[in-house]
């Protein structure tokens, strides 16, 4: 019985492969036919703005820390109003593996993936993107979130002026 099974197991596959030889290939021939990417496709990254039109990125370095291939670099700086922002922000898409870990790490929803995937070029520096190339005029996938309204340290509102905060304590009184 075992021997019969072995022989069958050896010769049946020949029939299978022969049948498949005449099947229609499932390959989609790419440049002639383009498939629309899935809604959550992880393509080129962009920096978005908050609903007030300010840059969402606070240059917290979490994306660069999460990046497994070290393709994100930046320098944080402080604006006069105390807002932390990226003085420069660079993504090297020639290194990027589009894993999306940076967008998961981003606490301000600044860094988001888009469906753009046709990035190939012969010019290496074209895929090294600076902040002005990455920053878009829009909120991306979330149109409501504004980090500084929830952070609890002021900047967009006077201290203690954001929702869910009490006004600043008066340290000159010991009254309860």
């Amino acid at each position: 019985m075992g021997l019969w099974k072995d022989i069958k197991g050896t010769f049946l596959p020949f029939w299978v492969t022969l049948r498949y030889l005449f099947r229609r290939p499932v390959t989609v021939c790419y440049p002639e036919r383009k498939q629309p990417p899935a809604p959550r496709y992880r393509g080129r990254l962009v920096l978005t703005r908050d609903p007030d039109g300010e840059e969402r990125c606070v240059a917290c370095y979490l994306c660069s820390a999460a990046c497994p291939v070290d393709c994100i670099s930046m320098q944080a700086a402080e604006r006069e109003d105390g807002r932390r922002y990226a003085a420069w922000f660079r993504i090297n898409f020639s290194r990027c593996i589009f894993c999306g870990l940076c967008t998961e790490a981003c606490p301000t929803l600044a860094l988001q993936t888009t469906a753009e995937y046709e990035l190939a070029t012969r010019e290496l520096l074209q895929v090294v993107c600076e902040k002005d190339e990455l920053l878009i005029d829009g909120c991306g996938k979330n149109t409501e979130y504004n980090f500084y309204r929830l952070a609890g340290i002021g900047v967009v509102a006077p201290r203690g002026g954001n929702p869910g905060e009490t006004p600043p304590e008066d340290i000159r009184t010991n009254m309860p």
Partner: protein
Amino acid sequence: MNDVLLTIILIVLKLGLVLGTVLTMAAYMVLAERKILGRMQMRYGPNRVGWGGMLQPLADLIKLLSKEDLIPEGADRWIFMLAPAISTATALLAFAVIPFGPSVQLFGRTVPLVICDLDIGVLYLFALSSLAVYGVALGGWASQSKYSLLGGLRAMAQMISYELAMGLAIAPVVMASRSFSLTAVVEAQQTLPNMVRHPLAFLIFLVAVMAESKRIPFDMPEAENELVAGYHTEYSGMRFGMFFVGEYLNLIVLGSMLTVLFLGGWYGPLLPGVCWFLIKVLGVAFFFIWVRGTLPRLRYDQLMAFGWKVLVPLGLLNLLITAAWMIWRG
């Protein structure tokens, strides 16, 4: 004088024709393999260069020729450079004795469609397939890499082991045709191909040939998930290309051997002999590709056990039976 010149011209013509045909065939064999495997896996295979990918071999050749020729530090330079050449040369030399068809009348002479009809053609083929071991073994050894060395060792053991089975499978054929000349062997099959006359020998030979060509399911020497690329791990550019071409030349050589020894050579109805020969060789090649698309790789111990414990005893038994039959029939 004129006679000598004509002889020389004919030889050169034959040589050129065979070389051109065989090399083109080898190149397109690569494409055919990729396309057939692709279709078996519901893909297209290469279809970008030329019409339906027909210029792919040319593109591959240009790529291989223009690639950097790396020689690893610590490699045995000369042997490293020589090994691919041995591999290709032995495969090419085998075509010297293979008869493609019946003799034809040309310029008033009888021209045999074989470059050199040796009386010991079978032995010559056998000797060359033994020499092919050198290309692989030396390439593996000279690379100074553990993967290459292991691949080379495996190839050596495998080829030597299966050569024995192959020899034992050929012996009945030679006995039946009473000649070592390949032309004679073919002519002996005019009525009935040896495949029918010696079915066991044919099966043994088929398996041994597959093992000899180091193809799936016997591709232990270059098992990529264990040995990277086996004996040619360290090769690049056209040197790698020569190993590659050698492999596909070997495919044609072994297909020709199978055709000549068991499938009745150029004999067949309606079509001219050369066509039949080609059809048979291509059929064998397709079969090899089909096997590659179907069967998984064996384990090394299974391979050796099968060779020594099954094929060699079977071959001996077959030899004994054939000899007995021949004595009984007188």
